[in-house]
Structures are given as structure tokens and as C-alpha cells.
């Protein structure tokens, strides 16, 4: 089969799987809801802008003027008949969490595929250059010492911590316009160790906030809201699209940097761009969901096994498979007898499966 056709059919197939997993997931929970009702309630939640209203008003601080602010007005597209309680459970409680899980899974799996190719190392995952540790340091600081953190929100603090760490590691590893991959890896390990010490120190002195901080670090999607989705989705979506546009460069980089240079790839610029984008995508994911391990490691490996090493098909399929994987594991995490952080489920399921593949010799280096 021609590769573009193959890519399209795999992408379409995995999208169908994602929708199916979403509907099944939204049906499960303390209150069982019929999947057809879930589908209707989901469609009811779709709104489109219908016009501009200027009814809301705001007061400009200092001047005391009250001015009308234009805003978009939304109307629902569909009007299926769904009981109010079910509509609320699906649209306001379960869907935000499910959509957030899919966004985070999408981001982490795509970033993991990029990092494994970039480092030509099967052990690489999205947090290899310290992005997750940076996010954790930012988040724990915001939880344990809110007074010291200038940015109010936990998300923003984790996001900035993640990006700052990625930038620091890159800056340390770069010399004379070149960033050797091995140095990058070592700088990442060193910074992660240092941040680990900082996090432990903060945890020791976090007092009553210890539990909240530890749960954040395990990775969870509890109490997700549409505003969380609004925070992570743009970065994840745009980031992964641009990464997909660089799939051919990633393929050529697999041959080694010197070969890639001879094949017309601006190696250092491409490396910077790939690192920046995958760090951004990872940061957006971990900022809203905490450190969820194994999605970025296992999903790209499984997809590479199925669709092959070509990043033009591997990237989009890993992203979509990662989305379905995290929605499914989060469903187990929340619908089980007692809710647990989803990070526990991904690792508990992902690690044995990965070992199974390893023992079967199905997993090779990139």
C-alpha cells in the first residue's frame, strides 16, 4: 500500500478507536449511562459561535469607567433529549476529564516518539531532558510554598518550570553552536538529579501539603475542567502538527547527524526545533496532569512495532494511540473500586506489557 494512503487509513482507524473509547469511558463510572445517551449528550455539548454580544461589562481599574466588552455568543448545535443529570455528568464531569486525558496522552506519546528518534535511544521518553522534573519542581513549589511562587496557578508554575528546565539543559549542552546529543542526555540526567533533590527538600518541608504534592507527582486527572483542556489543547495540538511536518527530517536524522547534513538537513536548527516543540508539548501535558509515566515510552514502541519506524506514519499514529491509551487507563483509574492516580495504572499496565514485548524480542533499538 502507498505510504500516504497507509498513513491516512491508520490515522482514520485510530480516530474511530479514540471516539469509541471516549464513549465507552463516558458511559462508565459510579452512574452507568447508556452509550447512546452518552453520544447524544456529547453532541449536545457541541456549541458554535452565533454572534457577538456586548452585554457584559467590565470596570477599568483606577478610572472607574464601566465599558461594555464584546464577547462571542455560543449556541448548541444539537438538541437531543437527554435527562439533565446525565447531561451534566457527561458534559461537565466526565467529558472534560476524558478529553484532557486524550490531549495529554496525545502529547506525551508524540513527544516520546520524537525523543526516541532524536536520541536514537529506545529508552528515551518525553522527560529525558528534565522537562517532567522541572514541571514537578514548579508544581511542588506552588503547592508547598504558594507565597514564594509569583504565578498564581499550579498549571502555570509547572509549565514554566518544565520549559525553564528544558532551556537550561539545552543551554548547558550547547557549545559553539553545536549541541551534541550525548551531552544533552548527560546534562538532562544531572539536572534531573539536582531537581530531584530540590523536590525532596520541598516535600520534607511541605507539612500538610505533602499528600497533594505526592499525588500530583504520580500523575492524575482528578477534577479536570474544560479550562484545563483549554490550557493544554492548543500547545499539544499545534505542537504535534508542526512535529509531524518535520517527520521527514526526523527520518533522515536517524542516519546520524553527519549523513543528515549531507542530505540537506540543517542539523542544529532542526534539533533545536524538535527539542523545543517536544518540550513544549510535554510541558503542556504534565502541567495539567502531573508526571504520567510510561505513555511516552511504551506507546511509540508498540506503534513502531505495528507501523514501522517511518516518522511520517509513526508520529500521528503514536499520538492518537497515546490518546486512546490514556483515556482507557484513566477510566480504569477512576471507575475502579477506589480511584487511584492514573500514573499508577499506566505504569502498572505499561511496564509488564513492555517487558512482555522485550522478552519476545519484539522491541528493538530505534
Amino acid at each position, binding site marked *: 500500500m502507498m505510504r500516504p494512503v497507509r498513513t491516512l487509513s491508520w490515522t482514520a482507524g485510530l480516530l474511530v478507536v479514540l471516539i469509541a473509547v471516549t464513549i465507552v469511558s463516558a458511559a462508565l463510572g459510579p452512574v452507568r449511562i447508556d452509550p447512546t445517551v452518552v453520544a447524544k449528550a456529547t453532541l449536545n455539548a457541541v456549541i458554535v459561535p452565533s454572534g457577538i454580544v456586548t452585554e457584559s461589562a467590565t470596570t477599568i481599574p483606577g478610572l472607574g469607567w464601566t465599558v461594555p466588552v464584546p464577547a462571542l455568543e455560543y449556541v448548541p448545535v444539537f438538541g437531543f433529549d437527554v435527562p439533565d443529570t446525565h447531561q451534566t455528568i457527561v458534559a461537565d464531569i466526565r467529558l472534560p476529564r476524558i478529553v484532557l486525558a486524550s490531549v495529554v496522552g496525545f502529547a506525551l506519546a508524540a513527544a516520546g516518539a520524537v525523543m526516541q528518534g532524536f536520541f536514537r535511544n529506545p529508552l528515551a521518553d518525553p522527560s529525558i531532558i528534565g522537562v517532567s522534573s522541572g514541571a514537578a519542581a514548579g508544581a511542588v513549589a506552588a503547592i508547598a510554598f504558594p507565597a514564594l511562587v509569583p504565578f498564581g496557578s499550579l498549571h502555570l508554575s509547572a509549565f514554566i518550570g518544565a520549559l525553564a528546565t528544558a532551556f537550561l539543559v539545552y543551554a548547558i549542552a550547547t557549545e559553539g553552536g553545536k549541541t551534541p546529543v550525548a551531552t544533552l542526555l548527560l546534562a538532562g540526567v544531572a539536572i534531573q538529579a539536582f531537581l530531584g533533590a530540590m523536590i525532596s527538600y520541598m516535600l520534607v518541608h511541605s507539612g500538610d501539603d505533602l499528600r497533594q504534592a505526592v499525588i500530583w507527582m504520580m500523575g492524575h486527572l482528578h477534577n479536570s475542567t474544560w479550562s484545563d483542556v483549554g490550557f493544554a489543547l492548543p500547545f499539544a495540538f499545534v505542537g504535534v502538527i508542526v512535529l509531524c*511536518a518535520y517527520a521527514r527530517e526526523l527520518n533522515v536524522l536517524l*542516519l546520524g547527524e553527519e549523513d543528515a*547534513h549531507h*542530505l540537506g538537513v540543517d542539523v542544529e536548527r532542526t534539533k533545536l526545533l524538535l527539542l523545543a516543540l517536544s518540550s513544549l508539548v510535554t510541558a503542556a501535558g504534565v502541567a495539567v496532569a502531573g508526571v504520567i509515566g510510561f505513555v511516552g515510552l511504551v506507546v511509540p514502541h508498540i506503534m513502531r512495532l505495528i507501523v514501522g*519506524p517511518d516518522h511520517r506514519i509513526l508520529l500521528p499514529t503514536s499520538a492518537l494511540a497515546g490518546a486512546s491509551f490514556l483515556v482507557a487507563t484513566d477510566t480504569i483509574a477512576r471507575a475502579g473500586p477506589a480511584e487511584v492516580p492514573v500514573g499508577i495504572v499506566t505504569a502498572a499496565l505499561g511496564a509488564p506489557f513492555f517487558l512482555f514485548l522485550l522478552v519476545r524480542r519484539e522491541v528493538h533499538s530505534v
Partner: protein
Amino acid sequence: MTDTPRPDANGGAGPEPATVSVEDVSLSFGDLSVLEAVSLSVEPGEFVGFVGPNGAGKTSLLRSISGALEPSAGTVEISDTNVHDVSSRRSSRLVAVVPQDTSLSFSFPVRDVVEMGRHPHRSRFSPPSDDDRAAVERALERTRTAELADRPIDEVSGGQRQRVVLARAIAQETPVLLLDEPTASLDINHQIETLEVVRELVADGRTVVAAIHDLDLAARYCDRLVLLADGTVHTVGPPSAVLTTETLAETFEANAAVTPNPVTGTATVTALPHGTSDGAESGRAEPGEATDGGRTPSAHVVGTGSTAAGVLTRLERAGVDVSIGPIPGGDVADETARRLEVDRIAVEPFARPSASDRAALDERVRGADVTVVADLAVGATEDGRRLLESIETAERLVFVERRPPEERIDGNDVRRRYEDCRERAVEATPESVLEAVRATLRRRSET
């Protein structure tokens, strides 16, 4: 040997021919100077080989031309474009590289690997054009890898893989092609096959520069050779002018014999063991040390090939009064004997030894203290039996054998007589021949 660009056999589908000019290029890694003021120019449609000992700077010079290494001084221009001043996209349309080894441990289909050669010609979002597809198919055909096109690259053999990487470089359709040790990991058959493909590309007007380890292959396929030593250009010119015993002795510090290849007519280099110039390796062999009680011992060598040449060199360097023969012209041992100015019984190639040759042999064997038989080839012929007869008269024998006897000895009676001689001989290797000669001499003084 071509000074003018040849017409393109693909009817203009190939790239414009280009000149490579390297001017005063110096390169160093930290304090270590790798290249010093290297200048050379390669004409369009010419195949130039870089030869020289390990560490001479062949690969570094190649990588400087490709743009992978930035020289600390000097310029590299391909058709008036400085490859270090332009983007990698631009330079990769001028020069393609076949590296010594490519990490290909992932299962891309062969066709996809070759298609990567089109990367510099493609825009980010458009699918491959008809030109791209045609270039990939042509490259596959040319390197005879078309039948492998759908196989994963990690499942083809090393020789096939090297051709796939060559196909990738061909698909790049650049006027200049650089090859780093293109034959290093190939068997003899694939070496020739690869270089024949390269030769075809040169015939189409491509300019090819290759670092080649194998001097014989370099002499056979390159129009000109650049002999590098210690980061500088030692000699440039046609292979016959560059590969001489003198230049090789100076650059490789090797004791080598250069003879014309009887089949191709190009230079063939045979490296010989060091004599006294390398005392540690040859085992304390100081000049004159082999002398016995003030008298210079004498030895006559019967045999051919590099074994005989090695034995001859060692004995001569150790001060033994040595002679050789009968030896056919063109043989490595003959060339060595001529260079060492050793007394030799020369026979025309493929001619039968004359009666006077036989008499000379008998006389040499009788006159010498020791007769050394080095990889002797004897057939079940009258000449062969006559040769053995002379050897049988020798009082003291040393046998040096590297090639298996069944390849050299023919006929039952001949073999039996050869083995009888070996029975009473001291057996030795080319390295230990001197000790063996001494041992036979001691045996004489004891009796």
C-alpha cells in the same frame, strides 16, 4: 585521464559537471593538526582517489570537502560555490557522500532509504514529484538494488547495504560524489562491482573523489591519485607515477614491491616484511649478525611470490649472501630481487628454463651454505622433476611454506620427493627464516 566533461549518457538527466577545488585547507582537532595547507583540484568527470597510510588525513580531507568539517584555514569550492558558506540544503545539492559506515539498524524499506537522497530537492509539504520517483528508480537500477527495493534495510547483506547507500547518493543527483572507503567492508566481488558502478557515473560526467585503502583497486579505477602523508599532499598524478616503491617507502614506511598486474596491467602493490629497518619485529636481525665465524653465510632461494620475496628481503637485510632463481619475470620476488640487486636466475614469464638456467641453479645450490625453498610450485613435468633434482642435491634445506602444498605440488612422485626434502629440512616462516638459516649452519658446525 579525462580533461573534458563527457556527454551525459542519461540524455541530460544528470547534473552539470563540476570542478572541486581545495585551496590551502588546514584543519586541526584541538592541538592536533590533521591537514596542513592542502591544495588540489579535481576536474569535471574525473575520478580521483585519496591514498595514504592510516592517519594521513584521507577521511578528514574528504569531510572537509563535503562540508562536514569546517577547515581552520583555506577554502573548498565546488563549481565556484564555497561549500562552507552555504546552507546544508544548498551544499547537499552539490555534493553527495557515501560514508564509510551508516547506522542503518532500523527497518526502513530499501526504497525509502534511497528516497532520503531526494530530501534536498523536496519541499516540506509536497509529496514526491515524478522527478523524485524517477531518480530513485534510476539509482536502484544503476546499483542493481531494484529487486531489494521493498526489503527492510536491516535484512540485506553488508555488500547490498553499501550499494543501497551508494544508490541514495546517486539519487541525490549531485555533480560531485564523495566516497569514504567505499570498498572497505566488501568482499572482492562486491568491491569490483561497486567500483564499476562508480566508473559508470564518472563516464556520465560526475566528478568522484574517494578515499581508498586498497592501493591495487585505487590504481585500477582512479584517473589520478593523491598520495597523502601526515596531513599533506605527498604526490599527485596518474597511479603509475604515484605508486612507486620510493613513494610508498616514504609515506607508508613500508617495504613494498610495485609490479604490473598481469591481467589488468595496472600497478599492484605487495607489502613485504621489514628487514633490519625494523629490528624489533624481525627478531634482533642486525646487519651481519648472521655471519658465522667471520664468514658471510650464503643462501639460495627457490620459489616465487610474496613468500619468496619476503624471505629474500629478510636474508638480504641481515647480510646473508643471497641469490634466487629460477624466477619468472613480473613475479613479486623477481621485482624484489631486482630492487635489492640480488643475484638472480631470471626466466622469461611462462617460458621453460633453459639448459644454462638449470646449470646456473645447480651451481648456486652447490655453492650456497643453505638452500631455502619458499612456496615452491612444481608440476608433474620434466622441468618440475629436474628442479627437484637440483634441490635434492642441497646439503642443507630450509622450507618456508605459507600456501598449502596441494595448491603448489602436482603428481604423486613429485609430491613424495618434495616431502622427502621437507623431512630433512628446517621448517620456518618468512619471519623466522633467519633463525632457521642460523640453525642449519650450527648443525653443520656440530657435525
